[in-house]
């Protein structure tokens, strides 16, 4: 077995726990002393750094939730000096304001290191040609995997998203051996290749796929592996944690969460109490070495379970099972997180339509499609079809700007969409994973 950093990856469990405790202790003291946000939180919660006497004491610390990041917009929670910041990434918030994550050089380094270990554990290395088909830019997927693949010495093809036929041509012509993208996009690549008369299995050198940023299933993995003749690995991470960071190892039995980087808990989302290993609950993560935007007991909203038993691959770090759902109403459309509250927020700014809406999500071929139905305001009616089409375009454009996802828009008659008395159920998800 080849490990990127055997000293850490194969470290005996007891030693790893000692290391985690040490890092946690340093982190808590640092935040108590230097972070207004965490200091106040700890005081309100009645906990002092001295109360953390063992690793299990992490549960004494308060949770952090996504809205804390929104309230801290843009950099109120940062603990690095401005000149130490070398990068910002921005992801969707639950309403108008996005979530901002800042990075120091060390933060980028740890993120990249985490991925270098992960990609190596999937069997990738210097001889590989890696096509990064995640979006580049503010989204962490593209640049994250780009830096990770570059660190292990692979040849990186920064293909980004879109232009599927060109992606397939590049894959074939540049003898690409590994691709990083969403599982649905890879399925779409497979379908498009078939239409072009190209078999990914027989006509390309592809042997590995690193897939993530949206939910998928073991059945889908089997189908992709068989149809494309490759091994498909699951990758996990959100921008709050830094970005995509953890993958399955060659055993494909859950992703190793590097203990020196992340301390993982699984809790009951209702009670906030820990659940036993192997039981499902919400994943809560503390990033132990993060300088610019410290993350302590962050409630990811992802539902999964933890497995601390030894892995066949020899790595001692705990494994997290494939995600099985969300605690909240967040949707993931083509790898992008979408909250129905964002749609509502966007529609409020468009006088031609009412704030009443419905979202339908379905798959066309392998790709997610999101349809937003909105009601035309009677005052905006025109007998010119082009005027109505313009309103549709405007809604589509506004939503695309807000969500970073293209949506179909259907203009409906006033009063034709359902009204809700209690909790609105505005999403109909027809996708089968």
């Amino acid at each position, binding site marked *: 077995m080849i490990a990127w950093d055997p000293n850490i990856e194969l470290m005996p469990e007891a030693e790893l726990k000692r290391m985690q405790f040490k890092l946690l202790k340093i982190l808590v003291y640092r935040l108590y002393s230097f972070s207004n946000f965490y200091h106040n939180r700890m005081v309100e919660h009645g906990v002092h750094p001295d109360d953390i006497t063992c690793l299990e004491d992490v549960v004494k610390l308060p949770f952090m939730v996504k809205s804390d990041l929104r309230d801290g917009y843009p950099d109120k929670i940062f603990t690095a000096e401005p000149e130490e910041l070398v990068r910002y990434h921005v992801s969707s918030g639950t309403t108008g304001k996005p979530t901002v994550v800042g990075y120091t050089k060390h933060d980028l380094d740890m993120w990249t290191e985490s991925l270098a270990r992960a990609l190596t554990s999937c069997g990738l290395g210097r001889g590989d040609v890696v096509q990064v088909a995640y979006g580049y830019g503010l989204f962490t997927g593209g640049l994250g995997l780009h830096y990770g693949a570059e660190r292990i010495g692979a040849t990186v093809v920064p293909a980004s998203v879109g232009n599927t036929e060109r992606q397939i041509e590049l894959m074939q012509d540049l003898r690409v051996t590994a691709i990083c993208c969403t599982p649905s996009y890879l399925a779409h690549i497979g379908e498009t290749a078939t239409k072009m008369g190209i078999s990914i299995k027989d006509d390309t050198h592809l042997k590995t796929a690193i897939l993530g940023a949206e939910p998928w299933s073991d059945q889908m993995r089997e189908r992709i592996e068989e149809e494309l003749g490759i091994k498909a690995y699951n990758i996990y991470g959100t921008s709050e944690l830094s970005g995509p960071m953890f993958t399955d190892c060659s055993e494909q039995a859950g992703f190793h969460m590097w203990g020196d980087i992340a301390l993982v808990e699984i809790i009951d989302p209702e009670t906030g109490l820990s659940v036993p290993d192997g039981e499902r609950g919400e994943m809560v993560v503390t990033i132990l070495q993060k300088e610019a935007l410290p993350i302590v007991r962050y409630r990811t909203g992802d539902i999964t379970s933890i497995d601390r038993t030894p892995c066949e691959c020899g790595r001692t770090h705990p494994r997290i099972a494939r995600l099985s759902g969300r605690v909240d109403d967040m949707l993931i459309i083509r790898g992008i997180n979408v909250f129905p509250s964002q749609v509502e927020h966007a529609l409020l700014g468009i006088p031609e339509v009412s704030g009443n809406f419905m979202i339908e999500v379905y798959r066309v071929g392998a790709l997610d499609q999101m349809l937003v139905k909105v009601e035309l305001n009677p005052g905006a009616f025109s007998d*010119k*079809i*082009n005027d109505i*089409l313009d309103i549709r375009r405007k809604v589509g454009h506004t939503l695309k700007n807000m969500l970073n996802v293209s949506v179909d828009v259907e203009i409906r008659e006033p009063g034709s969409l359902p009204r809700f008395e209690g909790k609105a159920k505005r999403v109909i998800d027809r996708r089968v994973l």
Partner: protein
Amino acid sequence: MDITKYTIKQISVFSENKPGRLAAIAGALQDEGINILAFSIAEANGFGVVRALVDLPEAAYKKLNAMGFMVSFTDVIAVKMRDVPGGLFEMASVLSEAEINIEYSYAYSGREAAVLILRVDRVDSAVEKILAHGGTLLSVDDFS
């Protein structure tokens, strides 16, 4: 029952959205002595489709095609409307019950009554249902 008798050939002409196109079409038909019985324009992004019922569809097709226009035939039906309140409702209900979708329609006032031109997704069933319900359809002969 001869359904084809009630299947009227509408000519549809592609036209860019710029001055003079309609005049060119109408002028050409006039030159050929072709009479336009009903007529509508549908607009889209930078172009439109001119739809017309004429007394000599084949001749119109030939002429416009020779002039370089893009022309095609579309099957429509022509319903004679009773000139009383609820006339349209009656007709629309018949089609609605049979789950026949009206894709577009336009009307003209004929010699005796208003005539509704309908483009539907299932022409044959529409003809059957309307006749069965006692409606009056114009036939190909009425237009020549």
